[in-house]
């Protein structure tokens, strides 16, 4: 009885299934500062409302400074890897606006769960950039204290941290720090992840748990178009921010190279979470200008003119133009930032080289809060073994 073609064309019925991922969706790509440095309006999001001219100027200069220093951290670390001081480095070149916009929208009580690339967010959360190098140098697995900075350790297993973030947000709900209306008290969580990570089961389960419990978490996806060698099209045929609609919470795509827009959108999403209105997915549309990591060779899988095209959208250049054209910053300011960056670079170079290797015996430390007899014996056995070489090895 089955006949070919029976039934309507569902594609027609349901509307086109696939849209090019460059499509910016119903909301359009939220942008407040064009690549040319022009301020533009957006119906739903704005930057600087309620700020005086000076306050606004100061904040934008702050963004410029943050992005410049963040880029310097990245450049120095990349160089340190080239010189063998780091084993590997995950570059953020091109993603400065996405990270500073997201990072500056945070309040001290907000907690961040990063991937391995959130150097700019770490900087905003007050993590000493020098500490970021330890993991990549191989002397530790993250030297900062998550409790001090409300900034978790880097997570290397793709997507895993989005569930931790959701659970942490559920804890905030139980602590009564959501929706009280007290700005000093209400808190939220940001879960960072990439476009490739959006395919992991864990990330989608995080969406489900967050929606189910209406948890105060902002899922911040830096869509830098690439998961190592795989383009975004392998992960999704529609704009990533629309994934949220399938889970029952809002999604928005913002120009991730526009620090003003990223700041405005992230802050709105965070406020929504703090107010008890639940999760939001923010897709920061940007581009990975560098290699995936210093061990990667992008020439094997992508064309350089893509990169050239995105160079024109540089997140820092547009802010510099804006500041200069509108006389919001003078040369002294730019010189000062440049000098500060040089100092930072110097400090990172010296500090990195000075980082000591851990003691071999330290591998037995902190495996548990309460050490086991088994491990104590293994530790002692190894110590005795090492001593047997004194002299021999020296």
């Amino acid at each position, binding site marked *: 009885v089955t006949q070919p073609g029976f039934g309507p064309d569902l594609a027609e019925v349901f509307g086109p299934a696939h849209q090019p991922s460059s499509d910016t969706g119903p909301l359009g790509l939220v942008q407040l500062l064009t690549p040319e440095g022009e301020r533009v309006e957006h119906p739903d999001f704005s930057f600087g409302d309620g700020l005086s001219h000076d306050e606004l100027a100061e904040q934008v200069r702050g963004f410029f400074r943050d992005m410049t220093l963040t880029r310097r951290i990245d450049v120095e670390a990349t160089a340190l890897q080239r010189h063998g001081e780091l084993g590997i480095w995950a570059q953020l070149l091109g993603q400065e606006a996405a990270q500073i916009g997201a990072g500056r929208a945070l309040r001290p009580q907000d907690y961040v769960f990063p991937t391995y690339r959130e150097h700019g967010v770490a900087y905003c959360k007050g993590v000493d950039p020098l500490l970021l190098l330890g993991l990549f140098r191989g002397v530790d697995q993250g030297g900062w*204290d998550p409790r001090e900075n409300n900034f978790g350790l880097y997570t290397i297993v793709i997507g895993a941290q989005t569930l931790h973030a959701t659970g942490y947000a559920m804890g905030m709900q139980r602590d009564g720090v959501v929706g009280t209306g007290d700005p000093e008290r209400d808190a939220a969580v940001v879960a960072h992840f990439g476009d490739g990570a959006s395919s992991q089961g864990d990330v989608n*389960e995080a969406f489900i*748990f967050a929606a189910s419990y209406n948890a105060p978490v902002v899922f911040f996806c830096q869509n830098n178009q690439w998961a190592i060698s795989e383009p975004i099209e392998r992960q999704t045929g529609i704009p990533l921010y629309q994934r949220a609609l399938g889970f029952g919470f809002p999604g928005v795509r913002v120009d991730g190279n526009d620090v003003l827009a990223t700041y405005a959108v992230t802050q709105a999403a965070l406020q929504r979470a703090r107010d008890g209105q639940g999760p939001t997915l923010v897709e920061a549309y940007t581009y990975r200008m560098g290699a995936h990591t210093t061990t990667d060779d992008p020439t094997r899988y992508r064309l350089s003119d893509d990169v050239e095209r995105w160079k024109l959208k540089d997140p820092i250049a547009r802010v510099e133009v804006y500041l200069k054209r509108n006389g919001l910053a003078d040369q002294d300011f730019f010189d000062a930032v440049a000098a500060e960056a040089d100092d930072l670079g110097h400090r990172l170079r010296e500090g990195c080289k000075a980082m000591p290797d851990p003691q071999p015996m330290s591998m037995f430390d902190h495996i*548990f809060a309460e050490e086991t007899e088994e491990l104590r014996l293994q530790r002692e056995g190894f110590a005795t073994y090492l001593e047997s070489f004194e002299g021999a090895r020296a």
Partner: protein
Amino acid sequence: MTTTTQKVTLAKALNMGLRKAMEDDPKVLLMGEDVGKLGGVFRITDGLQKAFGEDRVIDSPLAESGIVGTAIGMALRGYKPVVEIQFDGFVYPAYDQIVCQVAKFCFRSQGKTPIPMVIRIPFGGGIGAVEHHSESPEAQFAHTPGLKVVACSNPVDGYWMIQQAIAAPDPVIFLEPKRQYHADKAELDDSVTPDPLFSSRVVRRGSDVTVLAYGPTVKTAMKAAEAASGEGKSLEVIDLRTLSPLDMAPVFESVRRTGRAVITHEAHVNLGLGAEVSARITEECFYSLEAPVLRVGGFDTPYPPSRIEEDYLPDLDRVMDAVDRTLDF
């Protein structure tokens, strides 16, 4: 909690232990599939949501990685999540979160962010269930540094060990022999001081052969000892209780006396706990051994259809057979 003694099943003892832990520490949360109104498919959390509310006894979406992953986040926020995995065979979707995250947070952060968390897993077979409901995954967790793994074998231990596991500052995989949930009742006296959590225990003294067991096979070992004594053979039975770390001191002491050891568990023999225990006994008691340590476990086959599961599972006869083989060696 009353301190007057009462006779309870393992299921009831665990339920009482969880209730006590929740009364003692407001940070303790329960989470899992059907743990709320239903009280869990085995009723271990029966009545707890009613008593402590939906914020502390949390029915979760159907996703084990999500359960463990969000529990990690809650632990980082200062809570003590006790998650229930509905059946042993369904812990695997959460395996990545357990071995790469739960096990590593403390080490990764150099002790700054330990994960005090309990993962309760009803384990083992013998209940006539379908596939994936009778697994014994303990070896896989015991092989993972950063996890502590324990197995209770009776109501009294169940009551104390679950409270100790929850109080522990480290992640504990808590294995419950589901076949024993409603099997035997035991006298529960709330006023005694329990043994430490990470200790094994000699549960029957003997002089000819040391029989090691944990969880569901402790009962089997005790039956075997009973039967053996009828044949004039004296078996010493040790309930390992803690699988990682292993508490080998009482085992070594015993084997040095008996010169013979048999270990029995439901998990597959190949790379099961018996392999490690055998290797350690041989390393430590080499000159005391009259025979190699013999292992009686589930065969190296997938868990079979329930109509033949009793043939798969180590039973009194197979333990006795090993005892005879080690004596005749």
